[in-house]
């Protein structure tokens, strides 16, 4: 895959996102492997940065065993968060800014130091100075939310928006925090933070590894979304979605009604 191809495919994905028009899976017409897909992702993010956007952190995907098996893969996937994706806690947003958005419950970590080499659990947790409940909006740029592993990696792992609640200091144990995502006040999905790789901190270890393998690293001040605890649900107009996490507090977002 040459530079011209990287430029073309990353542009296609960038335009799909900005114009809100889903495109055909890239992998149906082009041959590229997972490593090349991360190169396309890097180029895609660079287009945004060139427009004045800034990188705020990373997101992890396929952190639940079911999701990984469903996709037929056994590694996690890494995407990037940028400032233009940030939505405030409690904000009312127009769902029309997305193509076919879905929302999922997450845990966010904030890093107080950069992680520029592979680390173990104690080391990554030492680098965390805050934890918060978070919601992620995913919105595949591909038609019908259908993609191969390489496709989704190139498409920044479908990541489109994120809402983070208030960061607090790490509680003594974060391995089994109850997580309840409610729609219009009614509990919809329940899980424990154990659904994220048995301990959500393990997600940071893999994020460090995947970032280093693909030409970047996690920087002090950045945030990390550790992965969804339950399957994503369609984000529709007129919907109030909130997530409460035991000991951490809550976060919410509301979509405006259909016009």
């Amino acid at each position, binding site marked *: 895959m040459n530079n011209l191809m990287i430029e073309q495919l990353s542009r296609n994905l960038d335009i799909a996102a900005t114009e809100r028009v889903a495109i055909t899976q890239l992998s149906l017409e082009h041959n590229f492997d997972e490593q090349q897909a991360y190169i396309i992702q890097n180029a895609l993010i660079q287009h945004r940065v060139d427009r004045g956007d800034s990188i705020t952190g990373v997101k992890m995907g396929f952190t639940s065993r079911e999701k990984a098996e469903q996709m037929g893969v056994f590694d996690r996937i890494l995407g990037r968060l940028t400032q233009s994706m940030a939505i405030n806690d409690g904000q009312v947003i127009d769902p029309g800014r997305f193509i076919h958005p879905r929302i999922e419950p997450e845990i966010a970590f904030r890093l107080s130091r950069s992680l520029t080499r592979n680390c173990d659990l104690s080391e990554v947790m030492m680098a965390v100075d805050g934890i918060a409940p978070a919601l992620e909006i995913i919105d595949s740029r591909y038609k019908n939310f259908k993609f191969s592993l390489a496709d989704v990696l190139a498409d920044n792992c479908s990541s489109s928006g994120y809402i983070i609640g208030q960061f607090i200091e790490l509680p003594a144990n974060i391995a*089994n*925090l109850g997580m309840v995502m409610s729609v219009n006040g009614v509990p919809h999905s*329940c899980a424990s933070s154990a659904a994220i790789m*048995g301990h959500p901190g393990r997600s940071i270890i893999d994020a460090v590894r995947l970032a280093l393998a693909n030409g970047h690293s996690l920087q002090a001040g950045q945030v990390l979304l550790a992965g969804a605890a339950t399957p994503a649900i369609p984000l529709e107009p007129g919907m109030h979605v909130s997530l409460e996490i*035991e000991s951490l507090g809550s976060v919410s977002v509301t979509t405006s009604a259909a016009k």
Partner: protein
Amino acid sequence: MSDSFINETAVESAARKLYVATEQRKPCSPVRDELPELDLDAAYAVQEINTIKALESGRRLVGRKIGLTSKVVQAQLGVDQPDFGMLFADMAIADGEMISMDRVQQPKIEAEVAFILSRDLLMDEPTTADVISAIDYVLPALEIVGSRIKDWDINIVDTIADNASSGLFVLGNQKRSLADFDSRLCGMSMEVQGEVVSTGAGAACLGNPINAVTWLAREMALRNRHLRAGDIILSGALGPMVKVEAGQTYTARISGLGSVRASFSAV
């Protein structure tokens, strides 16, 4: 069959079929087609016949289990309410005690909060406050459910008639009070060999396990089998149930309540 059964009602016949399936450890066909369609009272009448039989044979009633407390499971069975079954002393297993695989038919396992009462709930329509006042302490629990109906081919009538598909239960050993944990947001994680196989939270059980106990207390008052001091109440699964595999140990952790284990024999 002897002539004495010729005049037995559909309810008695269903109860006998389930009793025989239990005694012979051999699953039977569903009972729903022999009973009035979706008649929950008829289903509970079947359960009650076998409860009386159990009590007459000397089994000791120690509590109740609440089932169908998750929205997902209710949707699967097309119902909008939970159900209950009877817990007998011989169904209680100690934390980590080896369980022979032949003790439950088609076993599945789920993690729950167990409530133990310090007083009788004899009033009509007990309230949440009545229930909370009556709770002595709380334990983490594993429920091993089973079905006497072949291949778990059940609807609501089948499972109610079959004592709410109850099997065995394991209680943890750390006595905690209601104030020690967040019954709505507590996390639940069940692991096998270090791998997480089910997770959930308190709210998965009717919004809060205490809601399930209140529902049960009211239902028991209506049916004249009031909850009593000392009763153990398994309030309902906090996460998806998992099929039991021989030779495995299932460890459940509930945030604030500690952990509990069920170990199964290799054969």
